[in-house]
C-alpha cells in the first residue's frame, strides 16, 4: 500500500474526481486535519440534499414494491448490476428532477392512502356504535315535544320489558312512563323512554340510578339514514383509495429510472464527501489517499487525463488500509477472512491457507460425489447465466471449489447420492449378491459407518495438521518480527510437543521404537516448556510454577483436536440421511405408481439433505477456521481498503473498475 497525494487545479476538480470515482483505485483519507494554508469546503448541505433525495427514491421504491411488486425470479439475487454507458449518467442527471418529482408524487399518494385507511377505521367505529340503534326510527338527538319528554340512552345491563318496568316502578312509583327497548345484550340495553314533560327530572334521576347514559355523538338523522350515509362515505373513500393505488401503480414503469436516480444521488453524495476532505487553496486542491502498490501506474495513467494533475507516491504508514490480493484459487475465500476481520499490518494474509482447508473440510463434511457435482454445475450455470457482480461471483466460486472437494471425498467415502447407484443396480438387475457400495465401486473406499473409528482418527490427524499449520504461521510471524524467544519457546515447543504426541500415536499402532521416539519428543518439549514458560515471572519458584502451569494448556489443544471429530460426524450425517431417503424412495416397488413415488421422494429427500448438510458443512468449516486455526495466530483488526468508487446498487458504468 502506498499513500498518494494528488494535486491539481481547482477548475479540473470535477473532471478528475469523476475519473477517480470511475476507476475506483484510490481510497481517500478521511478525518484528516487540513494542512496549514489550505481551507476545506463545507459540503454538508449538498450531501444532505443528495441523501434526502436518495432516501426519497428508496421510499418511493418501497411504496411501488408494495402496490405493484416487481416480478422477480427466485434466483434474481444472483444477478449482477445493469451495465450502462458512461454517457448515460448525463441523461440520468438531467432526468433526475423529473424522477424526484415522480417520487414525491408517489409518496404523497401513499400518504393520502394512509389518511384514507385511518378514515375507514373511524367510519367502522362509528358504524359499530350505531349498530344497536338500528331499530330506532327517530334521530338520536330528538328533543322533547310540547308535553312529552324523550329520553334516549343506554343502560349497562340486560333488561327486558318486564324487568325494566318493574325496576322503574320500584325505584319511583309515581313516575308515568312508556318505553321501548331497541337492543339488549348482557351488558348493554338501548332504550327510548317517554314521560310527561314535568316528570322529566324524576325520570332522569330514576334512570340514572341504573346507570343510564346518553349516546355519544347524537345526530340529527335517524340511525338508519346515518348508517347508510357512512356506508356511502366508506365506499367513496375505498374508491378514492383504489384510484390512488392505480395512480401509484401507473408510475411502476418509472421503477428503473427511480433506481438509477437513487444511484446517481448516492454517487454524488459520495463525491461531495470526498470534496469535503480535499485541502484547497484559491486555485489548487490536494487529495490525500491510499493506493495499492500494483495500481500506482494505473492511477498515474488515469490522472494524466487531466493535464494539470501531479501525483506523488509515498510509503504508507502503519495505519494504512489493507487490500487483500490473492490468486484465483484463494480469492473466493477472502470474504470468509474479512467476515472475521481484515488482517492488520502485523498479520500475514491467511487467505491461501484458509482457502485450502476450507474447501477440503467442507468437502469432507458434505462428502457426496453427487451433491458435489450438483454444486459445481449449479454454480457454473449461475455464473454463466446471471453474470453476477464480483462479490456474488466469488461466493459462487467458493461453493464451486467446495464442490470439487466434495466430489473427491464423496468418491473416497463411496457415496454418490448416498447409496443410490447400489439401489438402482439392485432394482434393475435384481442381483442381491452385492451388498455395499464398496463392492460395487471399482476403487477402494472407506465406509463412514463401518470404518467410523478409522475416519475419526483421520479427522483428528487432519485437525492436527490444520492446527500445526496455524501455529506455523505464528512461528513465521514471530521470526519475521524478530521475536525469536516467542517463536521458539511459545510456539515451536508446543508444535514439537503436538508432533511428538502424533508420533507417539503412530507408534502405538506400529512399533515400539516409534512410540519411544514420540514419547521422547513430547517429554523433551514438555521439559522445555516448563523451563521457558515462566520466564516473565519473578524468582525461581515463580518461574518454575509458571512453567508447570503452562502445561495445563494441553487441555485446550486436546479440546481443539477433538473438535475436528465433527468432520466425521457431519460426513456421516450426509451419508446416512441420503441413505435413508434412498430407502424410503425404494419402498413402493417398481410399478408405475412406485416409480413416480420413487422419483418424488428421491428428489425431495435429496434436496432436503443438500440444504441441511450444505448449511451445516459451511457453518462448521467456518468454525474450524475461526476458532481452531485463527486463534493460533491471526489477530485481524486492520482497516479494509475501500476505494472512492460509484458504490451504486443498480447500475455500473461500462469499463469502470468498480465491482
Amino acid at each position, binding site marked *: 500500500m502506498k499513500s498518494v497525494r494528488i494535486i491539481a487545479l481547482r477548475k479540473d476538480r470535477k473532471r478528475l474526481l469523476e475519473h477517480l470515482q470511475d476507476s475506483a483505485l484510490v481510497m481517500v483519507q478521511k478525518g484528516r486535519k487540513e494542512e496549514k494554508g489550505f481551507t476545506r469546503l463545507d459540503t454538508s448541505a449538498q450531501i444532505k440534499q443528495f441523501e434526502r433525495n436518495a432516501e426519497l427514491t428508496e421510499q418511493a421504491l418501497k411504496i411501488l414494491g408494495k402496490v405493484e411488486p416487481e416480478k422477480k425470479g427466485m434466483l434474481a439475487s444472483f444477478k449482477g448490476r445493469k451495465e450502462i454507458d458512461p454517457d448515460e449518467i448525463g441523461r440520468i442527471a438531467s432526468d433526475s428532477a423529473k424522477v424526484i418529482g415522480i417520487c414525491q408524487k408517489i409518496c404523497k399518494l401513499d400518504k393520502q392512502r394512509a389518511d384514507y385507511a385511518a378514515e375507514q377505521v373511524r367510519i367502522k367505529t362509528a358504524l359499530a356504535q350505531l349498530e344497536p340503534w338500528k331499530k330506532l326510527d327517530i334521530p338520536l338527538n330528538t328533543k322533547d315535544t310540547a308535553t312529552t319528554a324523550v329520553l334516549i340512552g343506554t343502560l349497562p345491563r340486560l333488561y327486558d320489558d318486564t324487568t325494566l318496568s318493574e325496576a322503574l316502578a320500584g325505584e319511583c312509583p309515581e313516575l308515568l312512563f312508556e318505553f321501548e327497548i331497541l337492543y339488549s345484550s348482557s351488558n348493554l340495553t338501548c332504550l327510548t323512554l317517554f314521560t310527561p314533560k314535568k316528570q322529566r327530572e324524576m325520570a332522569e334521576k330514576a334512570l340514572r340510578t341504573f346507570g343510564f347514559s346518553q349516546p355519544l355523538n347524537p345526530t340529527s338523522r335517524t340511525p338508519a339514514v346515518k348508517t347508510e350515509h357512512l356506508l356511502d362515505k366508506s365506499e367513496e373513500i375505498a374508491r378514492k383509495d383504489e384510484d390512488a393505488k392505480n395512480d401509484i401503480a401507473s408510475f411502476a414503469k418509472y421503477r428503473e429510472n427511480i433506481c438509477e436516480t437513487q444511484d446517481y444521488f448516492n454517487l454524488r453524495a459520495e463525491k461531495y464527501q470526498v470534496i469535503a476532505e480535499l485541502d484547497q487553496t484559491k486555485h489548487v486542491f490536494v487529495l490525500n489517499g491510499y493506493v495499492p502498490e500494483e495500481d500506482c501506474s494505473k492511477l498515474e495513467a488515469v490522472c494524466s487525463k487531466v493535464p494539470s494533475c501531479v501525483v506523488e507516491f509515498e510509503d504508507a504508514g502503519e495505519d494504512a488500509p489493507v487490500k487483500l490480493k490473492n490468486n484465483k484459487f484463494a480469492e473466493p475465500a477472502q470474504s470468509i477472512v474479512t467476515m472475521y476481520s481484515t488482517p492488520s499490518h502485523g498479520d500475514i494474509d491467511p487467505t491461501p491457507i484458509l482457502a485450502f482447508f476450507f474447501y477440503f473440510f467442507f468437502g469432507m463434511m458434505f462428502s457426496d460425489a453427487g451433491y458435489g457435482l450438483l454444486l459445481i454445475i449449479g454454480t457454473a450455470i449461475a455464473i454463466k447465466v446471471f453474470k453476477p457482480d464480483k462479490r456474488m461471483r466469488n461466493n459462487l466460486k467458493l461453493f464451486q471449489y467446495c464442490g470439487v472437494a466434495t466430489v473427491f471425498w464423496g468418491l473416497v467415502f463411496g457415496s454418490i447420492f448416498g447409496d443410490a447407484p447400489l439401489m438402482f443396480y439392485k432394482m434393475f438387475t435384481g442381483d442381491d449378491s452385492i451388498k455395499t457400495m464398496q463392492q460395487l465401486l471399482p476403487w477402494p473406499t472407506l465406509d463412514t459407518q463401518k470404518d467410523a473409528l478409522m475416519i475419526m482418527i483421520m479427522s483428528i490427524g487432519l485437525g492436527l495438521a490444520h492446527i500445526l499449520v496455524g501455529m506455523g504461521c505464528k512461528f513465521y510471524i514471530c521470526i519475521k518480527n524478530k521475536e525469536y524467544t516467542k517463536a521458539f519457546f511459545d510456539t515451536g515447543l508446543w508444535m514439537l510437543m503436538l508432533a511428538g504426541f502424533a508420533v507417539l500415536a503412530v507408534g502405538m499402532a506400529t512399533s515400539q521404537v516409534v512410540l519411544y521416539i514420540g514419547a521422547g519428543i513430547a517429554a523433551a518439549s514438555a521439559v522445555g516448556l516448563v523451563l521457558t514458560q515462566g520466564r516473565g515471572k519473578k524468582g525461581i519458584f515463580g518461574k518454575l510454577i509458571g512453567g508447570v502451569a503452562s502445561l495445563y494448556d494441553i487441555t485446550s489443544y486436546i479440546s481443539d483436536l477433538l473438535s475436528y*471429530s465433527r468432520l466425521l*460426524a457431519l460426513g456421516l450425517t450426509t451419508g446416512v440421511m441420503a441413505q435413508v431417503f434412498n430407502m424410503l424412495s425404494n419402498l413402493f416397488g417398481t410399478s408405475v405408481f412406485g416409480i413416480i413415488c420413487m422419483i418424488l421422494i428421491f428428489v425431495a429427500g435429496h434436496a432436503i439433505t443438500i440444504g441441511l448438510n450444505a448449511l*451445516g458443512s459451511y*457453518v462448521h468449516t467456518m468454525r474450524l477456521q475461526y476458532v481452531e486455526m485463527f486463534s493460533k495466530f491471526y489477530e485481524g483488526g486492520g482497516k479494509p481498503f475501500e476505494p472512492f468508487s460509484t458504490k451504486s446498487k443498480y447500475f455500473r458504468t461500462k469499463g469502470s473498475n468498480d465491482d
Partner: protein
Amino acid sequence: MDGIMGMFLAILAAAVATVFAGIGSAKGVGSAAQTAMGVLSEDSSKFGKMLVLTLLPGTQGLYGFIVGFLVLTSCGVLGGDMPTLGQGFAFLAASFAIGFGGMISGFAQGKAAVSGITMTAKDEKNFSKAMVSITLVEIYALLAFIVSLLVVISVPNLKF
C-alpha cells in the same frame, strides 16, 4: 425370549436416541425461529442469515436420528442380526449419551441462538461472531454423538 428382549431394548435405544435429542433440537430451533420471525417482521431481507442461525441447534436431532438409524440397521429391523440381551442393553446404554447430551445441549444452543439472532438483528456485521459463538455449544453434542456412535458400531461384534 432373550432375542425378543434384546430386540425390544435395541428399538428402545433407537427411540431414546432419536426422541430425546429431537426434543433438544425441537425446543432449540423453535425458540430461535420465534425470535428470528420477530426480526424478519421488521426486515425480511435478513432471511438468509436468520435461517443459518435458526438451524444451528438442529444438528442434535440429526445426531440422535443417525444413532437411532444405525441401531436399527444393526439390530435386525433394517438389516443385521437379532441382538442378544446383552447387545440390547449395550445399545440402550449407548443411546443415552446422545439422547441426553443432545437434549440438554439443544436447549443451551437454542438459548445461544436466540441471543445470536438479536445480536445480528442489531448489526449484521455481528453475524459471523454470533455463528461461531453458537457453534461453541455444539462440541458437547458432538462428543456425546461420538461416544454413542463408537459403541453402536462395535456392538454387533460384542459377544455376550
